[in-house]
């Protein structure tokens, strides 16, 4: 990167925060709305351990827009009333970005996610790791996620996952 692009940085941060906010608010349609409306839009959640050993399997493997939409259905319709709910707080921090071409930016961020189960009320760390994002720059300059890989340092989860990380 030769020059700091403060306006791009501000928009990338806004996208990061919009996603964190949607997830912490359990607003799955808001979460979906952060992704580009393209068939190739994707979200993967996988342990870094799998990635480092060339194992492609994930905790969540939504490799197309249809699967992102289905994830909204899982949470909003299929799983309702079957699990102990928990709150999350996502803390995100942009570490790096680079323009890949006129229409896309690559971004790497750190995240940590706290969880507080509704029954115990005891807060613990749910996961920590990195987001590896490809961000689509729209015609009017608006940013959407084309692809997000949540790579979890947490190879052993402390609980099942209902919501994406």
């Amino acid at each position, binding site marked *: 990167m030769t020059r700091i692009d403060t306006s791009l940085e501000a928009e990338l941060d806004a996208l990061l925060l919009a996603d964190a906010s949607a997830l912490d608010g359990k607003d799955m349609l808001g979460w979906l709305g952060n992704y580009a409306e393209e068939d190739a839009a994707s979200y993967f959640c996988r342990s870094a351990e799998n990635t480092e050993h060339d194992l492609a*399997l994930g905790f969540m*493997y939504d490799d197309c827009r*249809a699967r992102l939409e289905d994830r909204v*259905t899982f949470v909003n319709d299929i799983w309702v009333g079957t699990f102990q709910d928990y709150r999350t707080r996502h803390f995100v921090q942009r570490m790096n970005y680079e323009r890949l071409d006129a229409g896309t930016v690559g971004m790497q961020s750190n995240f940590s996610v706290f969880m507080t189960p509704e029954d115990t009320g005891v807060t613990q760390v749910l996961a920590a790791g990195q987001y590896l994002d490809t961000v689509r720059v729209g015609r009017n300059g608006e940013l959407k996620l084309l692809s997000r890989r949540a790579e979890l340092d947490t190879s052993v989860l*402390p609980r099942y996952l209902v919501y994406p990380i």
Partner: protein
Amino acid sequence: MTEMKLSWPKNYNEVPKEAFTRKDIYAEEIKRIFHGSEWHPVAHESELPNPGDFKTFRMAGVPLLIARDQQGEVRVFYNACSHRGNQLETAVMGNKTEFECPYHRWLFDTKGDLVGCPNHRDFLPGFDRADYPLAQPRFDCFYGLIFVTLSAETEPLLEFLGEAQNTLRELVAGDGRLKLLGYQKVRYDTNWKSYTDNDGYHAPLLHQAFKLLNWQGGKGRQFTATRHGHICFESALSVVSGPTVLKDQSLIEFKGQDPAVGSRIVSLFPTFVSTKHLDVINLRFATPIDEETVEVHYAYFAHQDDDEEMARHRLRQSSNLLGPCGLISMEDASVFHRIHIGNHTPGSAIFQKGVHDPSKLESEFLQNDESGNLPRWEHYRSVMGFERATA
């Protein structure tokens, strides 16, 4: 062995909830079950396909190193240096030609032989490297599935598996020639017995997804194998046709060659659950952490003969269908937690569905019967030495 007091009900369909929560009982389970006369699956050979590949795993706290040597043979070692017992390998998996203990630089090859130790002239007179290979537990293999037992008394593996052999062989695609796709690892806040009670057995009422996907349950066979109370399920899947709520139908598509029996589950005493569901092949290596926690490593596989499309299908299906975030099993995970909380109340857990006469044990069940767990409980009771009440 210590005698523990636990009042076990007369009826076969009742399990005292104390068995799930008492620390003294857990300590005794480690001795009698996990260090006792049972076989414990710890890996499948396909997790370490190449010479030098290894995996480490802690079976009820005991550190194991499973390694493939340069000639291709797989062995199980204790993951501890033969000198002072320092943990030898810290990585969860990897590839090495030698394992070196950093403490005093003892060096072992992939056959477990001690091939180097500096300054051995300072050791006891007559010190011979050949006397210090890595120690090994007893282990054996069934279609690539590697089992360990810490007791010399345990019956041979094939006898331990008994009638479960056929279902288990079919579950690993008939020949065990698998290819690792990856892991989902998780800890559940539950006693290991609540996990095994509820992971194989599936309450159809719980699974909202089954209803929304228009899947019919209950058309299948469940039977018990051996005195250990292993449980096998074999059932046909009514593959979804027509519209569902899913936009990407590939998640529930069945491309396999085994339509008559689309779903198989083998649950081996004490903690192993495995399943082949649709095109997912899933082996779950589970181990207790303490009396309130169980850690489960869900390992997923393709078959070595899969073409690219099939391997990709299995990868996409495996990641999203089962496991701690899977469409049809996330709520199981939640039930593990809730059952454990509920077990901190007086009385017994009472099994109902499929129980015809509480004074008798059966060995054939319908697919959704919860009574399939009862032979395993009888084995547990007997191994633990709990007296059943006579009245």
